[in-house]
């Protein structure tokens, strides 16, 4: 089996598992307990917080642990909205290709009287700071732009967008779930006020994440019932997961340059190999994308069939946008960058990891080429395209 869906989730690293184990049955006290055994757990928790803060270029007090990226996104947006509402500012700027954790929260805020501007995304999947600057109004309370897109992998000019927000005095949130641990992220130098991350995207465990909030940005608690996380997130801390996350992030940041160098070589080989498929297109800028992300559309191919047949050949891939039912919806990201419906349906996302090899890449290229050719041979749409009855959209 070749696992090429690391943007969906990653294998938990040995380091992370080793870091977690003692906190299940050795140091299992509750960090809130008074006795020394509980204190020991509390110390570990704070140590993890300090180490994570160091990886993100912020202060330990600016780190709040959450159940993952979605919760962090929800809390970031709702907190910033609450701050804005107190000042009578109820306008939010975001983009059309955010993760649903952001888009759906914005939809909820709309029903509460917020005005939301979703910026169009250019075809290359890269927003310009200028677009953000132009969209900010006097009543704008928040700008939320993802660091790297979860489907097409494009990396946004976050530092510049952050600078625009600073200059205009608007809070800036970034969903950095796909970025942290893969490319350098630094709260201070990137001018970020609020940042969401999720541990299982960088070989940490699932069910744990972080909302980093710059000092002076008060968070609204979504979960009531205790004073954990300085009253910003009630519930007994998931200490084993937090320890695993700290270890995984430390490792990912330590190896970041080496992994990225290796991945770019694999990624570019894969892109080259798949570009040879006629009537196909790489989605997202070829350079300014995550080191492990490859995302293609193939005309005349049905994404669901493509994934199933790749599965039969032992390749785990995705189209990028899986609905909770497991069915594939035409991706809002591809529609946002202007791909028509019929093209958006034939999409393939391959997300590599440092464990992948050049042999994997070769095998993926062979498998994709075979499956695409087979599906096209079976497709009535393809017949119409070949006979000229219907016009190709992709050259």
């Amino acid at each position: 089996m070749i696992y090429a869906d690391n943007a969906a989730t990653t294998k938990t690293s040995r380091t992370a598992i080793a870091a977690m184990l003692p906190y299940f049955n050795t140091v299992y006290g509750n960090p809130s307990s008074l006795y020394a055994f509980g204190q020991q757990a509390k110390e570990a928790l704070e140590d993890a917080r300090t180490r994570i803060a160091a990886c993100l270029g912020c202060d330990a007090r600016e780190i709040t642990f959450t159940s993952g990226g979605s919760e962090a996104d929800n809390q970031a947006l709702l907190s910033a909205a609450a701050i804005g509402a107190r000042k009578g500012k109820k306008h939010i700027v975001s983009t059309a290709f955010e993760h649903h954790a952001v888009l759906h929260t914005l939809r909820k805020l709309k029903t509460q009287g917020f005005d939301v501007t979703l910026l169009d995304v250019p075809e290359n999947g890269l927003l310009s700071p200028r677009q953000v600057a132009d969209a900010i109004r006097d009543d704008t309370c928040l700008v939320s732009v993802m660091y790297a897109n979860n489907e097409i992998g494009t990396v946004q000019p976050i530092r510049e967008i952050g600078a625009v927000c600073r200059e205009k005095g608007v809070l800036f949130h970034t969903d950095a779930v796909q970025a942290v641990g893969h490319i350098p992220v630094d709260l201070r130098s990137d001018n970020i006020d609020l940042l969401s991350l999720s541990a299982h995207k960088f070989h940490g465990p699932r069910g744990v994440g972080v909302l980093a909030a710059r000092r002076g940005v008060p968070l609204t608690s979504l979960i009531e019932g205790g004073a954990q996380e300085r009253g910003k997130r009630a519930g007994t801390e998931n200490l084993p997961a937090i320890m695993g996350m700290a270890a995984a992030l430390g490792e990912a940041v330590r190896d970041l340059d080496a992994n990225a160098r290796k991945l770019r070589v694999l990624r570019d080989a894969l892109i080259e190999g798949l570009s040879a498929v006629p009537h196909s297109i790489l989605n997202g800028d070829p350079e300014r994308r995550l080191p492990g992300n490859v995302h293609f559309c193939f005309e005349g191919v049905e994404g669901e069939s493509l994934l199933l047949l790749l599965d039969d050949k032992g390749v785990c891939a995705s189209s990028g946008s899986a609905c909770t039912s497991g069915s594939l919806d035409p991706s809002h990201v591809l529609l946002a960058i202007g791909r028509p419906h019929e093209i958006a349906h034939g999409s393939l996302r391959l997300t590599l990891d440092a464990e992948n090899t050049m042999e994997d890449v070769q095998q993926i290229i062979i498998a994709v080429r075979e499956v695409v050719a087979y599906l096209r041979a079976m497709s009535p749409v393809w017949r119409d395209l070949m006979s000229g009855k219907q016009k190709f959209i992709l050259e």
Partner: protein
Amino acid sequence: MARALIAMSGGVDSSVAAYLMKEAGFDCAGLTMKLYENEDAGISRAHTCCSLEDVEDARSAAYRLGMKHYVFNFTDDFRRSVMEKFAQCYARGVTPNPCIDCNRYLKFDKLLQRAEVLGYDLLATGHYARIEESGGKYVLKKALDASKDQSYVLYMLTQRQLAHIRFPLGTYLKAQVRWTAVKLDLCNAQKPDSQDICFVPDGDYACAVERISGRIFPPGDFVSADGAVLGRHNGFIRYTIGQRKGLGIASSEPYFVCGIRPADNTVLLGRQNELYRAQADAADFNWISGTVPQSSLRCKVRLRYRQPEQSVTVIPTGEASVHLRFDEPQRAVTPGQAAVLYDGDTVLGGGTII
């Protein structure tokens, strides 16, 4: 081992169909078609993106039977070929049967193609009907359980399709199916049968037509055959041929809806005797045998789902059209509904009443 894809809706019938295919020795996988978004069916979006519970029921049944399970998104096709057509028919004053369109354009066309592409030899569904083969020819027959028989909505099947379709429930009674589900401890064993049209769960067709078409159908006149205005209707899509209730007209003798005329936004009313027709025509006609009879023939016909069969003389008028002459005049022959021909248990074919 032949590979079979089982179309699983999440209901008890298709789950048991999956079990029977597995027992028959096929290498099976379950498949649920995602056909519409909740908003399209007028269900509030809540927090899920589709009719998630049905999908979960289907998945749970498939896993319980040791099968893989997939969900395929057919929302674009379903909207185009079924929902929009449904609304267009009503707007033309015709009463459609969207389940037949779903079978014709989705299940036994798009899905069957998909099954073939993915290397499945057979597609099985939980329909109550039988397929028999002799000498390379396929025959579609009524289900053994007459009360569940669904052969009426399957008349569009062709020889080529029948060769790749299985209806494992055709020889079972509904009670046996439920009993099998209980024995297998399937989570949906006690789930009620689906009623109505899946994308109109509240049964308010007129509201669905307006939602899908984005049009409003304004009030107009009720008229009699001689052109007299009898009252006001609330939009012609709210009426079907033969309807008596809800017309709001005081009269010693009851009125019935006899016709719908979108051109001048009127609904034609008449007395009971004006509802009867001695003949009708059907288009888009499919002869299951694949050959159009050379001369007229005598058989039985159903003009709507579950109607008792009526004697008829059928005169083929083209490759895909017939003229029907009923022995007894038929009440409320409704354009848009299917006329399906039977010879005993065998379905000869069917088409759309025009």
